[in-house]
C-alpha cells in the first residue's frame, strides 16, 4: 500500500514535469498540435489509407529510419493475413516507401526492408511467400508532397496492393 502510494506520488510529479516542459519549449507544442496523428514518430491517422476489404487497411507506417512494426501495424497485418487466408486466389505486392529526408539509394534499400518486415509478419500468420512480392519505391512515390514531419510520417509506409 505504501509502495503504491509512493508510486502514485511519483507519477504525479512526473506528470507535472511533463506538463511544465510541454509549455516551456516550442518544440513540444508543435508535436502536441499534430499529436492526434503521430505517435512516437509513427503516423496513426487515416489520410490516404485504402481498404482491401471492410476493416482491412492497406498500409502500415514506420518511424524515421525504422522498419520495426508497431502494435497498430501488427493489428493491420493480422487483418490482412486473415483476409488473404479467406481469399486464397489473391496475391499481393508489398510496396515499401521512405520519406524524402534520406539519400536516394539508401531509401531504396530502406523501402525494401520495410516491405520485407511486413512480408515476414504476414508469413508468420500463414501466408505463403509465393503469394507476396516486394517492391521498393524508396522516396520516389510520396503520397503527401509536404515538407513537414506529418507529411514525412505518412510517406514512411508499406502498402499492400493486389497483384491480380
Amino acid at each position, binding site marked *: 500500500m505504501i509502495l503504491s502510494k509512493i508510486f502514485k506520488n511519483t507519477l504525479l510529479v512526473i506528470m507535472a514535469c511533463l506538463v511544465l516542459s510541454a509549455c516551456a519549449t516550442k518544440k513540444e507544442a508543435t508535436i502536441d498540435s499534430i499529436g492526434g496523428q503521430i505517435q512516437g514518430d509513427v503516423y496513426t491517422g487515416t489520410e490516404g489509407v485504402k481498404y482491401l476489404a471492410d476493416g482491412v487497411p492497406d498500409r502500415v507506417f514506420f518511424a524515421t*529510419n525504422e*522498419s520495426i512494426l508497431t502494435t497498430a501495424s501488427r493489428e493491420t497485418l493480422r487483418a490482412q493475413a486473415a483476409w488473404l487466408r479467406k481469399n486464397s486466389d489473391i496475391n499481393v505486392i508489398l510496396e515499401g516507401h521512405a520519406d*524524402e*529526408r*534520406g*539519400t*536516394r*539509394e*539508401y531509401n*531504396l*534499400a*530502406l523501402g*525494401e*526492408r520495410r516491405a*520485407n*518486415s511486413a512480408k*515476414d509478419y504476414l508469413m508468420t500468420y500463414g501466408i505463403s511467400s509465393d503469394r507476396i512480392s*516486394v*517492391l*521498393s519505391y524508396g522516396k*520516389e*512515390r*510520396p*503520397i*503527401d*508532397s*509536404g*515538407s*513537414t514531419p506529418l*507529411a514525412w510520417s505518412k510517406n514512411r509506409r508499406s502498402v499492400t496492393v493486389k497483384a491480380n
Partner: protein
Amino acid sequence: MLIKKIIILLVLLILPTKVFALIEVDITRGNLNPLPLAVSPLSIDDKSKKSFEKILKKENIGSEISIIVENNLRISGLFNPLNKDAFLQAPDIANLKPRFEDWNLIKAQALITGKVTYVDEKLRVEFRLWDVLAAKEMMALAFTTVPSNWRRVGHIISDKVYERLTGEKGYFDTRIIYVAEEGPKTKRIKKLAIMDQDGENNKFLTLGNELVLTPRFNPASQMVTYLSYFKNLPRVYLLDIETGTQEVVGDFPGMTFAPRFSPDGKKIIMSFAKDGKSDIYTMDLENRLVERITNHPSIDTSPSYSPNGKYITFNSDRSGYQQIYIMKNDGSNVKRISFGKGLYGTPVWSPRGDLIAFTKLHKGKFYIGVMRTDGTGERLLTENYYQEAPSWSPNGRVLIFYRETKTDNKGEGFSAKLWSIDLTGYNERLVETPTDASDPSWSSLLSN
C-alpha cells in the same frame, strides 16, 4: 551517334617556348581574385565565314567559339574574361603578333587569339595563348574537325588553356548525364538526359514511361549504367548512348540498384536487395561473372571504387545508422571512416584518389563535404535543406550534385536542380537545365 570522334589532324604547331616567370593560377585555394584575361574573337576570312554560315547557321563561328571559351573560363571561377568592347587590336592582327602594351593597358594578364578556316569541308582552328606581362607565347595549337563539332572545339581550347595556366587537366570537353524531372512530386516523371558540361546540346534518352534513377558514366567509354523500373521491376541496366541499346545487368531475383562502373570500365558494382538486407555485388562485363562483395544483415549500398580499383567505399547502417566505410575490392578489411555527428551517405572516391566526397545529414540539414580516405580532414562545402549525390569532375576539382527545395504549407513549390561547387567550397553555381534535374554524373574528358 551523338558525338563523332573529333579528329585531331595537326597538333602542336609550335611547342611551348622556354619558361621564364610565366603566369600561373593556383587552384588549390578558393580563388577570390580570378585571373583577368582577354579572349580575342577567333578571326575568320570572308569565304570561310560564308561557308560556315551556310552549314551551321551561325553568322560568325569565330566569335561563337570564343564565347564558349569565355563562358567556360568564367564559370570555372579561376578566370575573369574581360569585356571585348575594350579590346584595341583587331583579332586577325592580334593572332599574328599581339601589341602587348595595348593588352596590358586593359589589365589582361593572358590573351587568347586564334583563327578559323574552312578547309576541305572541315573546320580548322588554330589558337595561341599569350602571357601579356612577359610578352611571350605560352602555347600554340591547331586542329581540324567536322564543322558540327564546333562547340567541342571551344571546349577543347578551354581545356588546353586551363591546363597550361593551372598545371592540371581541364574538364570542359565533358558531358553530364542526369535525370530530368517533371510533374507533381507524388507522380514525378523521370527521364534520362544528357548534355554538354555547359548545359548545351541537351537530349532526352528515355521517354519517361518508366521511372529511371542514378545514371552513371563508364569512365572508359560511352556507356551508362542506371536503375530502371521497366515492367515495375527495379533493375540495373546498361545503356550504350551511341547505339541506344539497353540490357539488364545480371540475373538477380530482386531489386538491384546503386550501380557504378569500376575505373577501368570493365565491371559494374551495385547493391542487391533481398529479404530486407542489401549487399554489394560486382558483375564483370566481359564474362558476366557475378561476385558477392559484402554479406551483412545491414543495408550496404552506394559503392564507389578508388581510382586504382583496389578499394571500395560504400555506406552501411551496420553500426545502427548510415555511415561511410572502406574495404578492399574483395570485401575484406571493412573499416568505418565517418565518425562525425550525423548520418553519412553517397561516398564517391575522387579521381585523384586522395578524397571521398559525401552527403551528410545532421540536425535536419544536408551537407556536401569531402574527407580524406581515412576519414580525417572532414570539410563541409555547402549546407542546404536537401542536397545529395556529389559527382566529381574528371580532374577532381569540382563537384556536381542536386538540390531539392522545401515545399510550402500547401505542399507546392517543389523543385530539383543541379548545382556545382569547387573543392575549395567557393564558386557555387546553378547548372541550368531545361527541366528540373537530379542524379548528375560527370563524364571523363571526351578527347584525351
